[in-house]
């Protein structure tokens, strides 16, 4: 038999025909089209398509900011997949801010500290929890042995709640008065209350009921106070026929949403408040029944204010027309429920006590204290019952020593001034001073002079990077904690944060870390920490409200206006404190801008939040600064420029905005992070690098509202 071409042809054709008639071709065509559609071509997803399962909701409280909103976490087979606002929660009733909604991203943040770390040259090495606690307690033991326990300092976000209470108790029983909190709206409210109404008080604003809100730069929808509660109060204005007048140099979101925007020269809000006060005095627009009870020299203050802040003079200082000042004063005084709000931007960070007190004076003069729709002057929410602490000899001696500085900025100043270490060891929890204090360079210098720094951060942020030991904490989704909503709300609520999943890394509850450090110290300290775990401590110290905390998820401490009259002492203002001036001689003024989509205090905004930032704020790696076209002086939209202040320079791009006062440069807060997270770091400039602290005489606060600057 001869196999020739024809046979081959037959073979080939037969094969083709056979395959064609068989179902193979059809099946392969179908399969390859499915293949092209499936995630199988998609490298990461092959083994992990999101698995379906039972859908449940669990409630907790968000502690990303002092707002402390109730949240509802949707879970699929116990795997959290979405955070939403919790309906009927007394703070936010269903709404949520973008940072809270993006909360799950913090769990898996690339910059999370996954295990205890110990400094090793420029980097860190992983160590065990036992070793880490032993190193910290060993160092602390040495400090106590040296007889100078006051050389242990602690910086924490707030002086509220049981975790803060444990840190404070550790310092107290150790023998150090050097317990500091970062400047926050709460601390500013307390300082203002202290200046006008007495110690141990705080101020709440009944925004949801006031019918005329006069806001001195308070970013009521920029994240001021408890953001969602403020959003809700603001949104209900339309139905309530209430008005909002916003006083600030820039058309912020709050100003744009307000019924009237009153542009004012940066840093002159206090003068405008006193100018309004003067008009009220001149035209007898104040409540005599209220002012007659003022102590501390009201007559002197009245005379002085009328002399220094006549409408014409105030107009000159603030840039607001004299006639407008008179109109504003009349409107405010004649409103049924007027309310003046202070705390520029988010009310945290640098603030002037003069400004806050002057605005609060307006509230005092219209007599809205402790009235519906007014300001509530109330004692600080105290719901914690720690057992009586017993101090040993060393601790007693240490606690008699004076605090190194009144505020945290003064602590750093002292550390930098002296050559001998005034602080031997520093604890930092929930605070990022190396990023969000003015001129962080000097904070870092101070950190370098402190021999031993322990960070309790969940993330390797700017401050944690300066630490010698990092004892990583669970995130708010992995732990129990009592969270009080202070933040200027009229009502006082404590919520319970609950773990939504098992910790995903080798982290611990900061409360547990403190307890184990204390237990490893000598008995004088250790005996004050009888709890085995933080949870046991939490249940014990919140015993009075534990039932409602554990059952309802929150405890409502107070809601109505306090029934007692508030005392008003105007001596601070009567002494005529000077208005803080911006540092430098340049012609323009740089001011920080609070943007709801970014976070200025604490860690950082999430990747989702950064994604929502407009391209007129951040473009690629460049930050854009806002100037009025009248200030542009040849600078073009989107063009590059050098921004120089007495503190530093930065390369920026220009965004021309008609909604900013000529002569003012606005730069957003919350960018320019330098830690290891490609989604949020190395984008733009940290505005704090360009602004230096200006200490207000009298209060000792850093009150730098901005700084003089030039653009070229």
């Amino acid at each position, binding site marked *: 038999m*001869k196999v020739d071409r024809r046979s081959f042809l037959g073979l080939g054709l*037969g094969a083709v025909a056979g395959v064609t008639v068989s179902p193979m071709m059809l099946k392969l065509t179908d399969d390859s089209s*499915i293949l092209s559609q499936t995630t199988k071509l998609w490298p990461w997803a092959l083994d992990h398509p999101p698995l379906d399962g039972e859908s449940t909701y669990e409630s907790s409280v968000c502690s990303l900011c002092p707002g402390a909103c109730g949240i509802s976490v949707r879970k699929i087979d116990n795997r959290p997949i979405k955070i939403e606002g919790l309906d009927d929660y007394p703070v936010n009733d269903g709404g949520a801010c973008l940072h809270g909604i993006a909360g799950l991203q913090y769990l898996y943040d690339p910059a999370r500290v996954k295990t205890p770390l110990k400094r090793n040259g420029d980097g860190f090495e992983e160590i065990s929890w036992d070793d880490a606690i032993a190193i910290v307690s060993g160092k602390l033991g040495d400090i106590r042995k040296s007889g100078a326990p006051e050389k242990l300092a602690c910086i924490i976000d707030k002086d509220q709640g049981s975790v803060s209470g444990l840190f404070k108790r550790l310092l107290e029983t150790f023998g150090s008065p050097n317990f500091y909190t970062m400047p926050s709206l709460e601390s500013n409210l307390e300082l203002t209350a202290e200046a006008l109404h007495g110690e141990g008080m705080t101020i709440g604003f009944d925004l949801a009921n006031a019918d005329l809100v006069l806001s001195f730069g308070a970013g009521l929808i920029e994240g001021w106070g408890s953001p969602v509660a403020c959003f809700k109060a603001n949104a209900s204005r339309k139905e309530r026929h209430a008005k909002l007048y916003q006083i600030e140099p820039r058309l912020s979101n709050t100003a744009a949403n307000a019924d009237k925007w009153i542009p004012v020269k940066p840093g002159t809000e206090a003068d405008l408040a006193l100018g309004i006060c003067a008009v009220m005095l001149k035209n007898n627009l104040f409540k005599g029944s209220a002012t007659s009870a003022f102590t501390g020299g009201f007559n002197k203050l009245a005379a002085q204010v009328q002399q220094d802040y006549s409408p014409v003079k105030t107009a000159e200082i603030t840039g607001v027309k004299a006639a407008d000042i008179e109109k504003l004063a009349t409107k405010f005084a004649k409103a049924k429920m007027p309310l003046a709000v202070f705390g520029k931007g988010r009310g945290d960070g640098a603030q002037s006590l003069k400004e806050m007190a002057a605005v609060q004076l307006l509230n005092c003069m219209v007599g809205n204290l402790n009235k519906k729709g007014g300001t509530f002057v109330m004692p600080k929410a105290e719901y914690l019952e720690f057992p009586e602490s017993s101090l040993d000899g060393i601790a007693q001696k240490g606690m008699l020593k004076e605090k190194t500085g009144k505020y945290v900025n003064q602590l750093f100043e002292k550390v930098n001034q002296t050559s001998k270490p005034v602080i031997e060891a520093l604890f930092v929890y929930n605070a990022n001073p190396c990023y969000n204090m003015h001129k962080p360079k000097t904070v870092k210098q101070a950190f370098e002079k402190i021999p031993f720094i322990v960070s309790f951060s969940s993330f390797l942020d700017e401050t944690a990077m300066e630490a010698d030991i990092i004892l990583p904490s669970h995130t708010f989704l992995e732990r129990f904690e009592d969270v009080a909503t202070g933040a200027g709300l009229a009502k006082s609520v404590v919520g319970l944060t609950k773990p939504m999943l098992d910790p995903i890394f080798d982290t611990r509850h900061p409360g547990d870390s403190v307890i184990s450090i204390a237990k490893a110290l000598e008995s004088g300290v250790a005996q004050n920490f009888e709890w085995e775990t933080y949870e046991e401590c939490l249940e014990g110290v919140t015993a009075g409200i534990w039932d409602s905390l554990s059952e309802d998820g929150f405890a409502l401490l107070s809601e109505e206006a306090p029934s007692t009259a508030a005392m008003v002492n105007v001596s601070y203002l009567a002494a005529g404190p000077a208005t803080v001036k911006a540092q430098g001689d340049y012609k323009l003024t740089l001011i920080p801008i609070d943007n709801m989509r970014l976070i200025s205090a604490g860690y950082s905004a999430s990747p989702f939040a950064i994604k929502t930032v407009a391209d007129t704020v951040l473009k690629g790696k460049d930050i854009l600064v806002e100037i009025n076209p009248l200030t542009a002086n040849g600078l073009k939209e989107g063009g590059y420029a050098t921004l120089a202040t007495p503190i530093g320079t930065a390369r920026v791009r220009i965004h021309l905005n008609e909604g900013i006062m000529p002569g003012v440069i606005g730069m957003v807060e919350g960018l320019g992070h330098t830690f290891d997270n490609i989604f949020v770091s190395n984008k733009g400039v940290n505005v704090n690098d360009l602004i230096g602290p200006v200490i207000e005489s009298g209060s000792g606060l850093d009150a730098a509202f901005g700084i003089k600057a030039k653009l070229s």
Partner: protein
Amino acid sequence: MSEIENKAENGSTESAGECTTGDTKDDKGLGLGVIFFIVAFIVCFLSGTLLFPKLLYSKKEQPFNFDHELHVGEAGDCDACHSLRDDGSFTGIPKLETCLDCHSEEPMGETDDEAIFTQEYVVKEKEVPWLVYSRQPDCVYFSHAAHLLGKDEMDCASCHGPIGESTSSRPYEENRLTGYSRDIWGKNIFGIKKNSWDSMKMDDCAECHKEKNDQKGYCFQCHK
């Protein structure tokens, strides 16, 4: 035709001598070509029909045999284990927790499968990694509630067949190309279906929807 072909071949062949000799003798080559054609056709057709599916699908054994018939007898109908939750979502294959309503660490029967179940899963508190024959692609949304409680109140067998009568678990066959179960296309490689449960592709859904609703439905009815 062959002549034309041959001529063409002659014209184009370089070694013309050999071919010409073969050509002049007879038409034996054509006959051989036909035979080759037929043989190749049969071989390829059969391999495309019989061998190809074997290559296309990889067989995976279930973790252990599951006797549906026994469970239906003991526990009741399908919804005794495969139920709708309060929110109308479908539980699918039950979790270990459901099994433990009846089972415990003590084996209930004497079979090897029962022993594997108790030792490997109940004692170790591990979920059984069942392979789901009817698992649809991720882009598919299927509401059991709509089909069970909707206007037609279909029964399980309409789509799943008489699985409740099975006494052992057949191997799970996975399409090597797409990664999906063979049950979606159906056992029959030609795609011919005799029963409503023989295949579970989009066309099968659309066919029934068209019949019951006069139209195939909108994309989002079955996709997500």
